[in-house]
């Protein structure tokens, strides 16, 4: 079926539908990764977003269910240039189209994704809507887009309290805002028992688990919407337990210390993002997926120092706090998809737990 994408600014892009052909409004963002779409689809951080893949051939190796980063895809729509008709991989469970259909995710292909990306780059992330059929009602689409609001999706994607993974000697309480499974795997592989706690749990809930450390997960949306979590993080910080935060977890910890966040023009989404660790002067290639970022100017040097910066735009990619028990990064050391070059940060976390501080 024909499909039409309309952006907030009125621009339209024609293509064809795949997956579940259901009209949908969303925030349109682009991701520049050339592979790793199953991980991306199931990354809860994309909740509410329509993701445009800049790589033009998607679906080549189908979907391997074991590569999923959560129980299902969370994004609102998947927009690509081309979809492979045949999925080829020895682990492939099903093709992309079937997967999206099964999970009720609208898809769109056959559009000039490079032109769309250039628009998003120049005008910034925008709201948009995909409508299916031969003659979509453009006025109605405009209206729907105008009325569409991104709401915080953290409550949707955060787990219920209680899941426990692994049986290692180190006990980690994971504050889950929409965790990617590989964060848990990275910890379990390193000898941890990981228990997940919902985004709105209290510090006491977590401490009842007698954790050796706390892991703050990634998650979707505007960090400032998570007032309850921010308040709890302030208490956790003051309590002084070793804590490692990734992505949204990084932003929430920063907010808890009174630093500010702002929305990037078009975000960092891809698996080729260089960050520099200032202490070692080393550059690492990282997987990133964030639309918001901690405002460097608001970071109080008495409380925290910037540990990593983006080589592309100089924005804050990591913070180390003055108590030496909390460090957080904006990028994804757990990878999946993307490079594993910063996996050592999990080791650093465990060493911190062992030593009591960094």
């Amino acid at each position, binding site marked *: 079926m024909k499909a039409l994408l309309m952006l907030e600014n009125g621009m339209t*892009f024609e293509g064809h539908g795949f997956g579940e052909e259901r009209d949908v409004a969303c925030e349109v963002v*682009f991701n*520049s*990764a*050339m*592979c*790793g779409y*199953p*991980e991306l689809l199931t990354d809860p951080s994309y909740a509410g977003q329509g993701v445009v893949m*800049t*790589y*033009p*051939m998607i679906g*080549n*190796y189908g979907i*391997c269910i074991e*590569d999923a980063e959560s129980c299902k895809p969370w994004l609102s729509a998947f927009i690509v*240039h*081309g979809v*492979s*008709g*045949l999925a*080829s*991989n*020895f*682990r492939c469970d099903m093709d992309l189209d079937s997967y999206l259909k099964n999970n009720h995710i609208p898809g769109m292909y056959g559009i*000039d*994704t*490079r*032109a769309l*990306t*250039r628009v998003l*780059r120049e005008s910034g992330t925008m709201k948009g809507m995909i409508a299916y059929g031969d003659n979509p009602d453009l006025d109605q689409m405009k209206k729907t887009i105008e009325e569409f609001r991104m709401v915080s999706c953290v409550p949707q994607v955060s787990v219920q309290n209680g899941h426990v993974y692994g049986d290692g000697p180190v006990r980690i309480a994971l504050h889950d805002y929409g965790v990617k499974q590989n964060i848990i795997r990275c910890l379990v592989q390193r000898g941890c028992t990981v228990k997940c706690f919902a985004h709105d749990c209290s510090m006491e809930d977590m401490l009842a688990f007698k954790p050796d450390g706390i892991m703050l997960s990634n998650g979707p949306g505007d960090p400032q919407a998570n007032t309850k979590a921010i308040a709890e993080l302030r208490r956790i910080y003051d309590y002084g337990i070793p804590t490692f935060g990734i992505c949204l977890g990084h932003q929430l910890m920063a907010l808890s210390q009174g630093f500010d966040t702002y929305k990037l023009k*078009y975000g960092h989404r*891809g*698996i*080729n*993002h*260089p960050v*520099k660790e200032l202490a070692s*002067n*080393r*550059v690492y*290639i990282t997987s990133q997926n964030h639309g918001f970022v901690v405002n460097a100017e608001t970071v109080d040097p008495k409380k925290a120092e910037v540990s990593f910066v983006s*080589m*592309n735009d100089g924005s804050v990619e990591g913070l180390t706090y003055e108590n030496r028990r909390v460090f957080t990064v904006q990028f994804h050391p757990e*990878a*999946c*998809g*993307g*490079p*594993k*070059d910063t996996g050592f940060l999990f080791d650093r976390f465990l060493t911190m737990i062992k030593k009591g501080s960094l």
Partner: protein
Amino acid sequence: MKRDSIKKVVIIGSGPIVIGQAAEFDYAGTQACRALREEGIEVVLINSNPATIMTDKQIADRVYIEPLTTDTVKKVILKEKPDSILPTLGGQAALNLAVELEESGFLRENGVEMIGTKADTIRMAEDRELFKEAMDRIHQPCAESDIAEDLDSCLAIAKRIGYPVIVRPAYTLGGSGGGIAYNEEQLHAIATTGLHRSRVHQVLIERCISGWKEIEYEVMRDHNGNCITVCNMENFDPVGVHTGDSIVVAPCQTLADKETQMLRSAALAIIEELKIEGGCNVQFALNPNSFEYCVIEVNPRVSRSSALASKATGYPIAKVASKIALGYTLDEIQNAITKKTFACFEPTLDYCVVKFPKWPFDKFVHAARSLGTQMKATGEVMGIAPSFECALMKAIRCLEQNMFDLRDKELDGLSDEELLERIHAVDDRRLFAVAEAIRRNFSFDRIYNITKIDKWFLEKLRVLLDVEKRLKTEELTRDLLYTAKDMGYIDQSIADFTGKSVEELRRLQDEWNIHPVYKMVDTCAAEFDAATPYYYSTYGTQNEVDPTSDRKKVMVIGSGPIRIGQGIEFDFCSVHSVWALRKMGCETIIVNNNPETVSTDFDIADRLYFEPLTPEDVLHIVQVEKPDAAVVQFGGQTAIKLAKAIEEMGIEILGTSFDSIDEAEDRERFDAILNQYGIPRAAGRMVYTCEEALKAAEELGYPVLVRPSYVLGGQGMNIAYNRQDIIDQIGIINTVHQEHPILVDKYIMGTEVEVDAVCDGVDSMIPGIMQHVERAGIHSGDSISVYPALSIPAHIQDVIVDYTRKLALSLRVKGLLNIQFIVRGEEVYIIEANPRSSRTVPYISKVTNIPIVDLAVGTFFGKTLPEMGYEYGLQPARPLIAIKMPVFSFEKLYGADVDLGPEMKSTGEVLGIADNYDEAMAKAFRGAGIHLIRGNALITVRDSDKEEVLPIAQGLYKMGWKLYATEGTCDFLSDHDIPCVRTFKIGTHTPDIADRVLSGQIDLVINTPSSNTEHHKDGYRIRRYAVEAGIPCLTSLDTAKALYESISHGAEDNLSVIDITRLEEYKK
């Protein structure tokens, strides 16, 4: 930070173009030299190849076009006193030289530091045992293997690992001398050659993992330990076919993130363990049914793959590697494409590229077309598009072999069984056989089980064939036409399928608004605004080219893939013409598709279009760019072939017009001019059929030259001595559809001379006359060429100048004119005139110090030669001798005959330059890898040559050579009191000639073929054995004489080194 201690750097180039080591090193080397010079570094360059851009005086401060030997490098170092040497830019040849100098202590003694990747690293990556140890340390699996230095251990290892095994000789280029052995007998043969070929007489016997996916990573690392991967690539053909002979796609298409990251992490671990500082290529084999993988090999230097990765991503690997060598770290080097980000990122693509090899089997009809671990391609092309389908179709078009889609007429009549056989055969045409099988509904499983080509690729072929089928059967709707164009079908193909005319299809495209747009290669998938004007076509909604210009806009047509007959020389000319046009204030557009070349570097022209060179592809660019003019005379036959189409597009062709080009090519028109001016040429006829050819030959008298018109490098040309030769020859020519007549000319024996003239419409200027060592009948590209023409008397030179002037004026040439003459006694005959650049232009420009291409471009704009500072006529000869020597790649092409004739066979060339003839000749031979003082020579010549070989044999004997000869030649030599050992004809007694050649008893073979269709005969076998045993084999007595003289005069005892940027210093 940049190290201040580095001020003067020696760079070693890769020498002549041979199979396995081609233009990619000119691209990398040129980029590196420019990168170093922009840092204020003084660059001293050593490279024996005069056709390269890197050996230009604009590129390096000091340029030595000298044989690539330790002797040369030592002399240059002693003379120039550099502080550093950068060995990783000239391929394996340069790496080997540098390591040798390091190991001997020479570098240390002279205070020269090896910068970039260090010698220890090179050894660790190159020495199989050290490498294996290193991989074991970091738990990276290699295919089970062991090293052998003799045949017995080879067999023992293979017995232990189990057949099939792969044989890989250590320290060779392009995997030469290797192969897959399925049993002991095969191993015996392959290992013998392999051991011989290896510099250290070492081969690796390896578990055969053919059928696994072959994946490559291009990785960069700086001294601070920062590592990035530039690109990964997947071979369409699984392990078993040399990556240089594989269709390669970037990025990888069939790997999930798990496999991708597993191999990426492995590549980074390897580059870290090896402590590489610069670029590195890592090749993996990946089991398609598990996560099992192994490391195939690592190249700690720039390579063909790094050139491809650079062009595929826009990331300038050689430039960044050079900056790293100077001490910079990746985070300090700017991304030259975006000018915003840094070199420490990983490019991301929003298109895919397909590299397709260009093989020389059209030239070597008798060579085995099978593909294996030994590379056979001479060059390659690259197609860029958002879909694999379209990128593949573009690549097929780029090859210029009269194929524009997946059809292969040769397969039409085959039965299914025959087709299956074709799929089993791993050769250059397998893609088309696989496509035909899909067309015939063979199941993917069946095809996969035979070929192990991933089903994803098969599916893509199916998608293409589905469009083909729909075009044949369905009504042509806008949707279908759009799909066909988007998949990369050209109008002619669609016309064939639909029965509509091309004009009708073009009208429909206008009516339905189906037009390509151009997108940018920007390293970042549009995430950042890029400043680089590097484009490819696709069908989409947004065109990114801004064609507005306030300058005169000129389109330069490049020369496509490197092939025999059209090599790197034409890239030299194209690049120089772009530079000259820019100097004249023009805006330049270059259209080309060869990823190995300098012309497709992102900062040569104002805009680069990486596209096939067909009329349709060029037309699309013209429609967007609307150039004021086009230049076709620098891109070889590829560009010339487009002249007519471009003129029909209403674009002015700068310089010589299409009509004049046609006049020179068209037999009758050209003859009319020759008659008008009384310029003699060999009598000839134009024919269309074999009968006509036979009749013509009878009339002219044998021997005759037979060739198709409108060809390059004498393709399809041969000397026919009798009726059978004519029949054979016409048969070979007609395997390709001929649009133009076949030419039959009387063969004249004489001295061949060649000129490249610059003509301004008033008169012409000849930088120098080149004389060929080999008599007429051997293609000029395969002849040793001497400047100046020493044995042509002044009054004959005057005739040559006069004829050149007359031809230039009557053909209304503006720009370059290449003419070949035969001088016989007092007579000067013309062989052919080509109003375009030639392969001798770079060489003659360099040795005469006359910027020929610049002058030609000047004439396009109405400047006369005197205005540009040059007198008309022949320029005074320089006080030096410069000899261009052809270099061949026969050892890579099983079955190809080595004998020289009118069809060109050499792949590259070297220069010998000195103030005297003998030394120049000695250098040229040395540069071509022929270094003989004394030894054993096998002489077997046809009867008509026996008199002539006498003085050579006599001379060699007197110098202490031991001579071997077969019956006839032996009797003849003995009759003339030249002692020689009689050797038996093959298969008569032991040891026969073959035994002697293969056992290494012979150091030089002189063999002249008795007839040109005698492949089954002994001569052919002797020549092949010589080539396979790595023994110089000369098939022309002229070459033999030149070699003998250069040896006998002892010139090579103390060879000079000459900096061609300071030629005036060498005046006598």
